[in-house]
């Protein structure tokens, strides 16, 4: 076949394919998945998540098990949303002395409108050396409290964190004592939650009721820095709220939206690579068995029966338990089982093609067996192979998810099955944390549907009989 002919055949195929709406839908979805699979990890709110998914430190500023931020729209008592305040207003002021020190004020403004204070506010300072620090907390009612004062020893490798809940109990008690002396009497600095108190309307209400004071809060972080280290010092404020992000967080404080997006990559690799290998093996076996015949035919057919009768998931579980769980072992195991799905149909088709005149002619011309198989029979069966490849992807993704759900997945990658495993093991179902369970499962279904659409569309084109009456 000349390249011109091939191009024409492809154009013909596209003309037929573009008329099947389901196929177009599948193609569009696949395109979106591929794009997200490639650039998705860069777009998510936590860009390093791919390598830090199981790193507790990476996620420590997120709130634990919070629902998505948009649940506030339906909540009569909206909770504070998690966010990170960066880009403060910076004011520099020469410090009296020998002139080598500068007092730098980092001013953050935080408009607050939830019905209860955030879980915690964490001030994060990156820098180097011994730095005196003073944090001022300014409330919308004009009150200002010094919540923290210390001498920090900063190091380059780690962020220094100052948390209201852990470092400002005294300041919270002080605030209540100044504004509402009656309520301060029974406050125990060891048991209070300073973040709640600092954001509450302490004048009108008792502390136990904790009614939040809405308005614009300002945090001023003042550092006494050496001149040369101003540029390398960075301050940000993490607000740990009751709702977080687009899909909430899990019990390990991980952002689920990030997890779901970075899971696309492995689902695609797994689905495409495995189905390709599977179909390649199945089609090759079937053609070889049909064309060569004899002992090889007998052997491959018995092998097919053997594999076909084996219970797949139990076998996968056992092998995953014996070998070290790895995605490549899983891919190989799935290939070992799934090739039987295409074997029989292709085998019967190949038996028919074998009888065609052009095969006989090519044999008469002295073509080798390999040549006949790969350049004459294989191309004819190629369209069918693509259809069955697409149709086998959903099952492969579900199998990976099932193996992962049982805790036998590859711990070095992030897949939807593993997110669901964590959710199930850590009690998401019992605690009604639907935002942890629903998105990964929906993604599995959506990815499966994408390939099912493509496969069914191809099938419709290849077998037009069933289209309509």
């Amino acid at each position, binding site marked *: 076949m000349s390249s011109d002919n091939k191009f024409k055949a492809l154009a013909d195929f596209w003309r037929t394919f573009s008329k099947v709406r389901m196929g177009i839908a599948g193609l569009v979805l696949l395109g979106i998945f591929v794009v997200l699979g490639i650039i998705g990890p860069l777009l998510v709110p936590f860009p390093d998540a791919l390598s830090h998914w199981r790193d507790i430190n990476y996620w420590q500023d997120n709130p634990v098990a919070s629902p998505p931020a948009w649940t506030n729209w339906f909540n009569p008592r909206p909770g504070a949303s998690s966010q990170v305040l960066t880009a403060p207003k910076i004011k520099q002021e020469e410090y009296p002395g020998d002139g080598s020190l500068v007092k730098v004020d980092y001013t953050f403004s935080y408009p607050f409108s939830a019905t209860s204070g955030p879980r915690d506010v964490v001030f994060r300072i990156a820098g180097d050396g011994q730095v005196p620090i003073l944090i001022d907390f300014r409330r919308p009612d004009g009150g200002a409290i010094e919540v923290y004062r210390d001498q920090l020893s900063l190091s380059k490798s780690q962020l220094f964190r100052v948390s209201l809940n852990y470092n400002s109990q005294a300041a919270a008690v002080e605030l209540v004592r100044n504004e509402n002396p009656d309520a301060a009497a029974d406050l125990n600095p060891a048991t209070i939650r300073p973040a709640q108190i600092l954001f509450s309307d302490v004048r009108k209400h008792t502390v136990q009721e904790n009614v939040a004071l809405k308005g614009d809060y300002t945090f001023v972080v003042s550092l006494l820095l050496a001149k040369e280290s101003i540029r390398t010092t960075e301050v940000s404020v993490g607000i740990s709220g009751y709702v977080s992000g687009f899909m909430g967080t899990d019990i390990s404080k991980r952002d689920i939206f990030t997890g779901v997006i970075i899971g696309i990559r492995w689902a695609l690799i797994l689905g495409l690579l495995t189905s390709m290998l599977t179909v390649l093996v199945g089609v090759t076996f079937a053609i070889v068995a049909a064309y060569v015949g004899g002992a090889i035919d007998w052997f491959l057919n018995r092998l097919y029966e053997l594999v076909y009768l084996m219970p797949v998931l139990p076998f996968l579980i*056992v092998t995953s338990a014996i070998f070290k769980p790895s995605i490549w072992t899983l891919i190989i195991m799935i290939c070992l089982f799934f090739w039987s799905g295409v074997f029989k149909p292709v085998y019967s088709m190949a038996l028919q093609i074998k009888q065609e005149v052009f095969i006989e002619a090519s044999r008469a011309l002295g073509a080798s067996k390999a040549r006949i198989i790969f350049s004459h029979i294989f191309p004819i069966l190629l369209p069918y192979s693509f259809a069955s490849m697409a149709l086998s992807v959903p099952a492969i993704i579900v199998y990976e998810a099932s193996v992962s759900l049982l805790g036998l997945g590859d711990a070095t990658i992030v897949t939807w099955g593993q997110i669901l495993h964590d959710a199930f093991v850590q009690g998401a179902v019992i605690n009604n944390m639907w935002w942890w369970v629903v998105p990964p499962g929906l993604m599995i279904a959506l990815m499966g549907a994408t390939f099912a659409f493509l496969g069914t569309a191809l099938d419709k084109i290849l077998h037009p009989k069933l289209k309509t009456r």
Partner: protein
Amino acid sequence: MYWKFVFKRIIYGILMYSLMVLIYSTLFNAVADKTLRSQIDESVNQEMRFVRTTNGDEFSRIRAQKLAIKTKQYHLDEPLHQRIFWRTVRTLAFDFGNSTIIKSSGGDRQVSAIIMEALPRTIILFSLQVVLAVVLGVIMGLYAARRPNSPFDRFNTMITLVMNGMPVWWLGMIAIMLFAYNIPIFPSGGMHINPAPTGFAGFLDYLWHLALPLITLTFVSMWSIAYLSRNIFLSSLQEDYVMAARARGIPEARVLFGHTLRTSMPVIMTIAVLGLFSSIAGNIIVEGIFNWPGIGNLYFVAVQQSDVPVLMATLAFQTLINMAGFIILDVIYGFLDPRIKVGMRA
């Protein structure tokens, strides 16, 4: 002639099954040996407690003797290939031995007793599911096939394709979250409340616990059966005899149920029978999610506890059921369609 075919098919099935058990046996042998040796050690230590001797040499001699007897009894002194062979033979003879950790509810450690306890639970849940899914699916398929490309048909196809890639256990998790915690009308799992009620109340309690897994499983599997039977009906609705029947003025309901459904029945029965047989093996994850103590759950517990005898027996059992299903289908087909017997030689 027919009986010869049946006989050959069964013998062939047994050979195939033996081969598969051999494969499992090889796979498990390394793990199995370890558990067996520790079992022997344990039982010898148990026996040694009753040996009254103060002589240290005498004591260790008796112990070594007892160990040697047991080792010989379990073929552990033989080379690897012989051990694999013996494990295969014992499994084929349904001699599964004792479990290492798992016990039946009666405290029995015999693997066959453990399996027999779990089996009925799985059969009830999954065969009910297959029956319900086939009945509902066939009705839906018939309606979809009657008006292809109608909104119902399109909806059906769409749902099938989406359901196709949806893990059943995920829907199970959602169902539990919805109907056991948000709208608490069903229990979240298990087979009965504790303590289990007896008599009619016990039966109602059982049904109540059965409902949620049954509904979930049926809901998932009925769509693909509907889609499949829709395609089958569609092709038989295109046959000439249907057109002829319509031309004769036979009512549409009779054309559908009499002519179409009846001629398509063998294919649908195949789906149903295969579904029934493979369902006996249970579903590891669904049973785990609903905490339904059937075969699948047993298998998973065995994996986690690495209880090799139970693992081996369950896997062999599941394979046997699968195999039996295929043989029965082949035999029925051979009876209905004589051409299939010829295919046997291929």
